[in-house]
């Protein structure tokens, strides 16, 4: 890597007053460094460089600023750099401030950086604290839910950011504050067609929220009414009987014949996992049974091809059509599992995963073969 004198020289190029072409070359060089692990590790030991780069994000030249943000995206992707970025260079408050600005040109890059920084719990906690002090989660949700807040940025990566934040109970509690209207505003985005990132982020957020079974009753009540928003992406155009229709939540009744299901299998799986989480309590199970979730799952099962997703669907269906668990086991999340049983279950799980992988591979291969049969040039 670079020697100390070389680093010092590089540093001297990274001032606002340096000639643009020299500045540009310096940032380009560092961008190259940041693109690989060794480069990142090297930069980790040079907080001065990073600080200087961060200062350059206010540079008048858009090209320079763009490169700088790129560098930070790369740096933030490496967890070992998180401490430096957050504690030493203190990027977070500035990033949030710029995020709030509806005219800011690089808000999308900021979202990506923040999303990277929140992936792991340690930095996530710090970031959440700063968030609450400066911007507030309410503002973040507000920006996320306001279509066209920033003309220059789509802000889709706020979705994964929210999802990451909700790994913290403090964040979840804020989102699910009964006295506010926060999580409700996210619900329509489970159907947001234009961005799989945004959609996935929202659904990930909702799934994390559903880990708190104390909130299930409220989530399923009219105050939030989470169920239809989880079911809609899984529901299809198949016609159900009038009886089945009338029992469904309002949003799922009489779906048009061009209704499409969620295209991304990972998101489908997340939705099913969320629904499964909601069956943990007796009240939740009852609600899902009452609201005719089963016919939706039945049609879904017929349509689904991915082995992993089908497995998740079957797990849910089993709970929906199965008998109620015995006394004392009504809250499936609180049941105590003896050590040996737990181990056996883990083994079984691992085996199942293996088998599913194999099935998936086979299916994909079969698809490719039929495709290549059709696609061979004449």
């Amino acid at each position, binding site marked *: 890597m670079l020697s100390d004198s070389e680093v010092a020289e590089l540093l001297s190029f990274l001032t606002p007053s340096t000639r643009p072409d020299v500045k540009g070359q310096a940032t380009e060089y560092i961008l190259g460094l940041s693109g690989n692990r060794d480069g990142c590790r090297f930069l980790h030991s040079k907080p001065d460089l990073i600080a200087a780069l961060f200062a350059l994000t206010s540079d008048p030249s858009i090209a320079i600023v763009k490169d700088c943000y790129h560098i930070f995206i790369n740096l933030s992707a490496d967890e070992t750099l998180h401490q430096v970025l957050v504690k030493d260079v203190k990027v977070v408050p500035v990033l949030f401030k710029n995020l709030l600005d509806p005219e800011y040109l690089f808000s999308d890059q900021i979202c990506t950086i923040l999303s990277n920084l929140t992936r792991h719990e340690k930095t996530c906690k710090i970031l959440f604290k700063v968030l609450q002090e400066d911007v507030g989660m*309410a503002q973040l949700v*507000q920006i996320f839910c306001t279509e066209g807040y920033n003309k220059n940025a789509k802000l889709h990566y706020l979705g994964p950011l929210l999802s990451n934040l909700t790994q913290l109970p403090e964040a979840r509690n804020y989102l699910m504050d009964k*006295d*506010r*209207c926060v999580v*409700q*505003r996210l619900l329509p985005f489970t159907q947001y067609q234009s961005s799989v990132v945004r959609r996935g982020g929202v659904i990930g957020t909702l799934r994390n929220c559903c880990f708190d079974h104390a909130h299930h009753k409220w989530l399923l009540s*009219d*105050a939030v*009414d989470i169920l*239809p928003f989880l079911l809609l992406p899984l529901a299809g155009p198949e016609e159900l009987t009038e009886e089945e229709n009338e029992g469904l939540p*309002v*949003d799922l*009744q*009489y*779906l*048009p014949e061009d209704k499409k299901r969620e295209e991304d299998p990972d998101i489908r799986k997340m939705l099913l996992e969320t629904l499964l989480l909601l069956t943990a309590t007796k009240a939740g199970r009852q609600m899902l049974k009452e609201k005719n979730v089963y016919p939706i799952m039945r049609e879904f099962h017929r349509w689904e091809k991915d082995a992993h997703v089908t497995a998740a669907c079957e797990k849910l269906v089993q709970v929906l059509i199965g008998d109620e668990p015995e006394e004392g086991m009504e809250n499936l999340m609180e049941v105590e599992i003896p050590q040996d049983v737990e181990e056996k279950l883990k083994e079984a799980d691992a085996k199942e995963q293996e088998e599913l992988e194999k099935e998936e591979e086979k299916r994909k291969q079969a698809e490719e073969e039929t495709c290549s049969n059709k696609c061979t040039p004449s």
Partner: protein
Amino acid sequence: MASTVHSDSDDGMDAFMDKFKTQRYKNAFSENDWEEEFNKIPMFMKNAPEEIDPQKYPELACLQSIIHDEDRPPEEQAKSLKDEGNAYFKEKNYQKAVVAYTAGLKKKCADQDLNAVLLTNRAASHFYLGNMRSALNDAAAAKKLKPDHLKALIRGAQCCIELRHFSEAIQWCEDGLKVHPTDKKLRELRAAADKHKRAAERDARKAKAKEKKLHGEKEALLNAIKDRGIKLVQPARAQRSGSDSEDEDERSPAAIAELSLDGLSSQEVTGAQVFVDEQGSLQWPVLFLYPEHQQSDFISAFCENSCFTDHLGVMFEELPPWDADRKYLPQNLQLYFEDEEKETLYRVDPEMSLLKILQHKRYFVKAGTPSFIVLVKGSSYCKQFLSGRKIHGLGGLLTML
């Protein structure tokens, strides 16, 4: 010391008090009408009179002129008018409240908070009068003056809900929650508006599905008719495509566009229409005409596979009251249908099924209801009816008998 003074005034008091027992004081309230009298004194009034006549209520008129003195600064005048409006509002006299608030707004005072309150209160008055649009306008104006005015925000949302503009209602709530994030009413209104909105969307989908189903059924029906080679014809009058014109629906195939649904609408207002039964056969409403007696019979569902004899047998089991000559016996009856275009009568073999007759190349179903003429074979009327007409017998073209 006290006792001496006491004894002195006591004497005086006693004498004074004694007077009351014997003399009435002037302008006393009488037992009968003291409540009425009280009501006339401004301080004790329970309700203000509608009109203040200075002759009858001089004190009240005086007070009024003090309140509405034009020399007072506009803010004060506006505030008094606000109070007046509020008083009327409390009495549920919303019309008068509106008048008072409007007068207050006309003062155009500089206190925007006050103006926002005047607008919001007027909005509330309009709301209770059922004038939702006026109420909404006032709420919006108040919101413009003071974007964080909670009552205006709530009122605006409520008006939108009443007007069934649910998306707009939700927007009002969200704007409100930005400034008052923990307000319970706003939260509840948002949830209610959202619920209504989604129910309305469901209703629209349901209606569309129903329409689609009906359309499908109509399509199937017309196809069944077309497949059998039966020709429908619109009566000359109703040539225009009706309100359920299939031409407007892009999904309708050309076949349907040809056989307009009007061909099935019954001009006879019988309420009956051809339909496909469970066995897949067509059941037609059929008219039997008896020109001799200006009578007719209507069969609401004549299965295409039945033959005429079956029905005639039942219909004329007992001879109808108008058959004075008692001659309309089933075996004596002759059936004809008329080809209007060629002005020819075609004889119908009663042993044939309805379907076969309808498929006759010169048979046109008019107004969705096949009709047949019934005559008594050999009767003088029959001869008269058939004379001078072109007739197609069972075998072929006949000359007149």
